[in-house]
């Protein structure tokens, strides 16, 4: 039996599936985030050096992971769209971008909230902070480019080229920033955490990471559904859906 890999590459067939998946992953996200936050705030022990302030790690670190991971996923869909010329891939890429930017911003914001009590400053030009900031600019550039182009097909393709160029650049940016930081020797604080981490902390962080992951899938699919309706508004199935029979 041959599998039709492209069955769900058409908006018409993907739209109902995306609705079901978004609901499922949304529920999973709520559960995982609830459990993760409970583990983080009530079960995990107080840190010997940082006291209670370290507990922001349960949001900060998963958000930072997701911010980088989502850029890769976005570039993957964008590249797929460019290679196979599928409509849906471009829609997925533009649906992921705002969530990625949100997590990047969240990582920067919680990072500065964490930095104030532990390092005594809101911001240092540390390699990771700086490259995270540049990642945020890359997300903004992608979204601004897509917003500026009226023709959705051109917007998808132009965004795809930009996302792929960005992916090639991210390692170069990261290493140059890291190297610049060690050259300048500006910040005396380091992000390296205590060598050993209690197992409950690690579990809490992993559960939160899964929660954020599920949330990203749900949010991206919901956004993709809106994009599908908007772009396919002239088609029959959207008319059926709008009448409530689709």
């Amino acid at each position, binding site marked *: 039996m041959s599998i039709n890999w492209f069955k769900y590459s058409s908006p018409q067939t993907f739209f109902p599936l995306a609705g079901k998946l978004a609901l499922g992953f949304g529920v999973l996200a709520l559960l995982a985030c609830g459990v993760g936050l409970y583990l983080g705030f009530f079960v995990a022990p107080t840190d010997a050096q940082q006291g209670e302030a370290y507990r922001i790690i349960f949001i900060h670190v998963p958000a930072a992971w997701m911010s980088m991971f989502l850029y890769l996923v976005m570039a993957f869909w964008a590249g797929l769209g460019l290679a196979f010329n599928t409509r849906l891939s471009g829609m997925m890429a533009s649906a992921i971008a705002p969530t990625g930017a949100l997590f990047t911003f969240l990582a920067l914001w919680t990072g500065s909230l964490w930095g104030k009590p532990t390092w005594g400053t809101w911001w240092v030009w540390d390699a990771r902070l700086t490259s995270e900031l*540049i990642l945020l*600019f*890359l997300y*903004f*550039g992608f979204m*601004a*480019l897509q917003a*500026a*182009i009226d023709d959705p097909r*051109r917007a998808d*393709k*132009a965004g795809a*080229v*930009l996302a*792929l*160029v*960005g992916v*090639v*650049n991210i390692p*170069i*940016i990261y290493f*140059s*920033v890291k*190297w*610049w930081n060690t*050259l300048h020797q500006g910040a005396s604080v380091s992000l390296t955490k205590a060598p050993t981490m209690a197992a409950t902390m690690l579990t809490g962080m992993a559960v939160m990471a899964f929660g954020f992951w599920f949330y990203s899938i749900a949010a991206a699919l919901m956004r993709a559904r809106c994009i599908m309706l908007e772009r396919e508004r002239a088609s029959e199935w959207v008319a059926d859906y709008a009448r409530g029979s689709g």
Partner: protein
Amino acid sequence: MLAALRCVIHRDLLLAVRRSSDVLTVLLFFVIVVSLFPLGVGPDPALLRTIAPGVIWVAALLASMLALQRMFASDHADGTLEQMLLGATPLGMTVAAKVLAHWLISGLPLVLISPVLALQFDFPQELLGVLALSLALGTPILSLIGAIGAALTLGLRGAGALLSLLVLPLYVPVLIIGAGAAEAAASGMGGHAQLLLLGALLIFAGAFAPWAAAVALRISVE
């Protein structure tokens, strides 16, 4: 094919000579931005000496970006670009030739005038060569990366501001390594590592950026 490329470069240079005010505007912008910094941070020579490479590099970044918008715009407006897309010469090669011409017009003057500006900052004379060399290796990379951005934003409204948002984050490694070369030389470490890295980036960008810009041009013009 080489004849076609020579033709593209010759044509772009000729156009620039006929409209030399465009070239001068970018150069003057570079000079003015650099001159603003002492007015902003104060005339203390020790401070100026330390910030000189960074200031000159940031100004070069901004000036190069100012010139980018014109890389494909006039060709797009009068239909030449479509002929290039249809032509027998591989588009990537044509783009590379246009980037080279663009650098000769907008990048090379910055490189040549940078030692004079560095002297205004009391930058040590024996290090002027390192600074100029880092700019000579770095500004072509800016033109190459910028070509992708210029091709993507071709014909869009608000293309100028959008272009800066797309291109400036990608310029970060060049800025860090380029400004780092003169800074390392000033601190006695020698800037060889940075200059070699800039050379590597130039080869990398020279191999891939024209190709990506060609893809972007086809998307923008189709």
